[in-house]
């Protein structure tokens, strides 16, 4: 029977994906890019939609929510997984609403008027089965996948609008988005890039070699020299792991220092982040915000005699408040940090913020 086979196949794939997430986030191997994770998550969700057994939109949403909770539990710091799940949930809601015939706009917006007049609980329980729902949802997910594939190129296309010639640009660590951004600008303009190496993993080294092979004048500096050289920098362009709901960032270690130094010298800080990194989380949850890796990256085991008497911390992420950021460049254009809340309301439904 095709049913049970498909199901076991599906569960196998989900388990494999969870295992991958668990392992890939420990900092051991090469850290996989967020774009890959997003694509794989979306592909997996499409497969679930296609192969799982469900009859109404509500069932599908329930299944996806359950799987989503397991996926986010496997690697809480990988927020793109949660973001994609919320996107798909929103897609399902939209398709359901369209099938029902009601207009999307009126239902989605939470206005004060609606709160007062409708009297609270909405009558959506998504129980009505529609035959055309499955192919519509799958088609919409396919569109989402195409959008995901084009994000880096869309961002890189905007490079020439922001970089002029003979500039000195500073960046930290390794971001594939920023790499593509700078390489695209380098085709037409000559500028100089300073890369902060971002200890202890020193991903800045990879970034520097890759940029210099593309013919860009690159300099590698240590993290300690960020403030010292900042006075000569014209722009700071960074990538990030997540964009938070208040417009702040959860970025790699050392970005907050970079942002403070840029603010001190009134240097614009530009963040290149595709839309799938936008997450409805706020930075207040201290225990879930930070992620730590093994302290032997900082103080190796060869320093044995003091290792037992010392506390060593190796945080991976930094919080950057929105006041320090000048501009977000995403695949749909440039925005100020104060506009992020609006973009988020278009991407996710408020009820999906908590999976």
């Amino acid at each position, binding site marked *: 029977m095709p049913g049970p086979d498909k199901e076991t196949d599906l569960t196998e794939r989900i388990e494999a994906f969870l295992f991958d997430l668990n392992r890939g986030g420990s900092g051991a191997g090469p850290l996989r890019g967020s774009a890959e994770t997003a694509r794989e998550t979306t592909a997996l969700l499409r497969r679930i939609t296609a192969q799982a057994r469900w009859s109404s939109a509500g069932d599908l949403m329930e299944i996806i929510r359950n799987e989503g909770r397991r996926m986010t539990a496997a690697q809480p710091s990988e927020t793109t997984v949660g973001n994609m799940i919320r996107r798909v949930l929103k897609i399902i809601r939209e398709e359901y609403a369209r099938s029902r015939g009601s207009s999307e706009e009126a239902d989605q917006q939470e206005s004060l008027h609606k709160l007062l007049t409708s009297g609270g609980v909405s009558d959506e329980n998504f129980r009505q089965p529609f035959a055309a729902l499955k192919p519509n949802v799958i088609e919409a997910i396919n569109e989402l996948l195409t959008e995901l594939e084009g994000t880096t190129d869309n961002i890189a296309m905007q490079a020439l609008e922001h970089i002029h010639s003979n500039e000195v640009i500073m960046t930290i660590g390794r971001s594939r988005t920023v790499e593509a951004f700078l390489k695209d600008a380098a085709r037409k303009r000559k500028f100089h890039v300073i890369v902060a190496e971002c200890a202890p993993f020193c991903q800045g080294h990879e970034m*520097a070699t890759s940029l210099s092979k593309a013919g860009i004048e690159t*300099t590698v*500096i240590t*993290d*300690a020299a960020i*403030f010292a050289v900042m*006075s000569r920098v014209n722009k700071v362009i960074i990538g990030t792991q997540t964009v938070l709901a208040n417009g702040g960032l959860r970025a790699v270690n050392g970005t907050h220092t970079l942002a403070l130094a840029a603010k001190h010298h009134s240097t614009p800080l530009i963040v290149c982040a595709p839309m799938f990194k936008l997450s409805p989380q706020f930075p207040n949850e201290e225990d879930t915000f930070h992620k730590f890796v093994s302290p032997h990256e900082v103080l190796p085991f060869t320093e044995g005699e*003091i290792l037992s008497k010392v506390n060593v911390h190796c945080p991976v992420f930094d919080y950057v408040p929105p006041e320090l950021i000048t501009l977000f460049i995403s695949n749909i254009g440039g925005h100020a940090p104060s506009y992020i809340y609006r973009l988020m309301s278009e991407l996710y439904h408020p009820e999906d913020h908590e999976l």
Partner: protein
Amino acid sequence: MADAGEPEGPERKDDIVKAKQEGKELTKEEKQRLRKEKKQQKKSKEKKDDKPSRDSEKEKKPASAASPAPQTPTQPPAQKAPSAAPAPVPVPASETPSAADKPAKSKAELKAERRARQEAERASKGKKGDVGPQAAPGKPKAPPSELQPVVKRLPEHVQVDNPEVLKKLAKKLERQQIPLRSDYGYKVSLFSHLHQYSRKAPLTQQLGIPSTVIHPAIVRLGLQYSQGIVAGSNARSVALLHAFKQVIRDYTTPPNEELSRDLVNRLKPYISFLNQCRPLSASMGNAIKYIKKEISNIPSQCKEEEAKRKLLNCIDCYINEKIVLAAKAIAKYSIEKISDGDVILVYGCSSLVNHILCEAFEKNRKFRVIVVDSRPRLEGREALRRLVQKGINCTYVLISAVSYILPEVSKVFLGAHALLANGYVMSRVGTSQIALVAKAFNVPVLVCCETYKFCERVQTDSFVSNELDDPDDLIVTRTGTTQLEHWQEVPSLGLLNLVYDVTPPDFVDLVITDLGMIPCTSVPVVLRVKNVDQ
């Protein structure tokens, strides 16, 4: 006064050398007269039409106040009239008081006469390139009691992009028989005015063994500096002073030489050598100035043994006062600032800050320490070992984690390499960053610095004067595999390994020195007080 004469013309040096060769022990007045005579001889050979002005000058000497008036008609034809005209003006200013008490101030008078002669020389000789620097040192000596406008020559180590300066340096080193160290690797264009050496090519490889020019203690010291074995401002100064003590012990005055002058000349090639191994720090510069002053103040009738003993004693006193006792005083002040329950953040390895923390711990203050470290030097591990040995509760992070750890911190203690006259703190690279983040989190920043590290330079950014360390240090990463191993082959890739940076005074809340606790902006006041004392 003899020193003042030297930069103004190579002829002076030749005169003195000639006089020395004649075997006479000349007093300063005699030497000046000799110089005067020789100059006049040269003059009469070159241009005979200057004789009337010379004679008029000789008449002027007893009546020195009348000198400016007849000089002015000779100057308008020269193109240096605007530059020379203001120069005679300060001359009568000093000459009138000197004319008033003639017998007591004969030296000042002679100086003024010499200057007047110089002006006339310049006017008569026509265009010569060195009028500018001659006019400049001429002016500041005129009002000796007021603040001297400091016209310093730019040090060589920040003019690497100027080929003339490099040629001059090469000639000087050749004369002193010291090998020239060559730069290594691709230098980032922003820092093309600084040297960048490789640790794998120490200067001592180019020295013959045994080297007769440089004392072996100095050779060893130079190697220790260039390989980073002796690092840290205080350590380097103390090592330097100990090496100089050895040099003084082994020194014997050659016949017909004065210890006070010959020893200073003997030290010059050593200092050049050490400078080549690693650029001198501000504290070392101040120590060397002190030694040179002490040596030149040795009276000529002092016997050699006594003089050497005196010098060794002076050096010991200097180390004791300026470093050891200063550390005790600073520790005493700082302990008032440490309260129970404090979480103190320190950066890198500053001997002074470690001393303070150990003292505070012995006085039973309850605090814990967070040590922040940075690549590639990882000096914080050394500080960590020392503190853990004492039993202090420590945490260790890298500098990129500073914004994570700062909300826990109550105070930041930083060491300094030098304190500049405009209130900026020059210290290990990364210090300004820590001060910046601490300011953003409203944590007080205290800098601990002895007064002998105060420096008269001014600087506003970390580019104009800095030190570039070996760029290959950045390559080694902890995991062993590196991306940058072949960075030299990639033409557009550069590695930058800065050693120092400057912290603006608005990030620093307090500077604790052996004279007390002062704000950053009071540094020039302390310098002035020190200068008046000396």
